[in-house]
């Protein structure tokens, strides 16, 4: 069961506890659409596309950090899913399966393209509703005064040093809808690896933030 805890002394930090394998809402509906596709009614694909395109795009985007590439990857993910739909295990979640394809496609894309300088972080954008919470978390004046552009630069600096696998874990984490167990399942790695990769990403960003604040 998915449980959201609001820890009493850190009210703004939402913590997602370890999850069990409860199906995602809408899984039954997804399975019906998959059945229709398997029966040859490929129009049912549109239902799944409209439902998941945005989320898949976001996952891909946060790995490759380029809008056009993320759109191409989203298209690729749905095509791959269509071609492999017979291998989808009906007892599992279609969305999780789709995420797995998205993560693998994005990682492969980066590996083909070559990581590092070829990946642009110019387009780092934030969910502004979540950004509003950040300022309430700190008493540090420089942090309170951080502008979106500056935040993007700091985050970009931290993410630039991450490997494809680290970035994929970060991307799923930033969806704010998966437990560590689910991220581990999607990535095909132990839960501890997920936690250590997030540890590393946070630490990189913390270092960048600290250096920025102390330089002010």
């Amino acid at each position, binding site marked *: 069961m998915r449980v959201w805890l609001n820890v009493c002394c850190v009210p703004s930090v939402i*913590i997602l506890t370890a999850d069990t394998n409860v199906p995602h809402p809408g899984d039954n509906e997804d399975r019906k659409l998959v059945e229709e596709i398997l029966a040859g009614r490929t129009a049912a*694909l549109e239902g799944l*596309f409209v439902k998941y395109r945005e989320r898949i795009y976001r996952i891909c985007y946060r790995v490759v950090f380029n809008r056009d590439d993320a759109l191409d990857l989203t*298209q690729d993910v749905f095509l791959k899913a269509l071609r492999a739909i017979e291998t989808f295990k009906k007892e599992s979640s279609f969305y999780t399966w789709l995420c797995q394809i998205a993560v693998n496609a994005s990682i492969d894309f980066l590996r083909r393209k070559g990581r590092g300088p070829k990946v642009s972080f110019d387009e780092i954008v*934030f969910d502004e509703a979540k950004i509003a919470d*950040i300022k309430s978390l700190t008493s540090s004046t420089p942090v309170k005064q951080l502008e979106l552009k500056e935040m993007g630069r700091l985050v970009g600096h931290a993410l630039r040093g991450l490997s494809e696998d680290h970035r994929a874990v970060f991307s799923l984490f930033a969806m*704010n809808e998966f437990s560590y167990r689910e991220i581990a399942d999607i990535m095909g790695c132990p839960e501890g690896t997920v936690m250590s990769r997030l540890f590393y990403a946070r630490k990189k*960003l913390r270092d960048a933030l600290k250096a920025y604040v102390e330089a002010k």
Partner: protein
Amino acid sequence: MGICEDNFDLMMRRLDGALNLVEQSTLEAHLRDCPRCTREFEYLRVSDCLLRAVGAPAVSEADWGPVFAEISEAAGSEEALSLAAGATEPPAVSAEEWKGVWEGIEREALLGAREEVRPAEIVPAVRKRSWFRLGAAAAAAAVVVLAAYIIFFVGGPRTMPPAVADEVKAGKGYAYTTVETGSEEPIYVIADINEIDYASASSGKDYMYSVSEDGSAIEIAPREAVEGDTGGEGPIEVPPEPQGGAP
């Protein structure tokens, strides 16, 4: 400062919601007393929130249009449709090929039940995938039933009786002498589970027959008509029927 280093790990785990109550109280007590760790924890919380807040540029409905159009086009193509629908038809199988399949089954299963299922009666399988599967399942079941039949009612390969002519000994299995139906001439019949050729034959429970090179079967005689004769070298001892199982 060792204690602060230890607390860095606690802070990380706190963000993951992985602290037990004791660890949580320890960390909170430390944060109250240590301004340095309090500041560190603030940085970490802000970092965590920043990572969670990373989004993606908006995509308009107009931008999604071409993306789906290509998916839809691929889905509409014959290849994608067949893949998606699982409607891939197996390649057509000719009557000749089916005959080959049947011969393979025969080789495996002896010819004990030939009377019930003759090659000529096998109709080429319907090309629908479900019929193909049904046919394959039926063939497999027939193989199992025939094998069981042979083992339990006819018996497997047996030891050659001692007084058997050399030409019969050259074969594998065991031998009867018998007469072809309608003929007075005795012939040797070697019963061998694993060979089907002119020199060998198979035995059913109530009849025996020989198979010629062109695959046609000649029924030789009912078992009761088997003669214990080796062409003047003394009678062949006809092996007894197995009682309730393979010898």
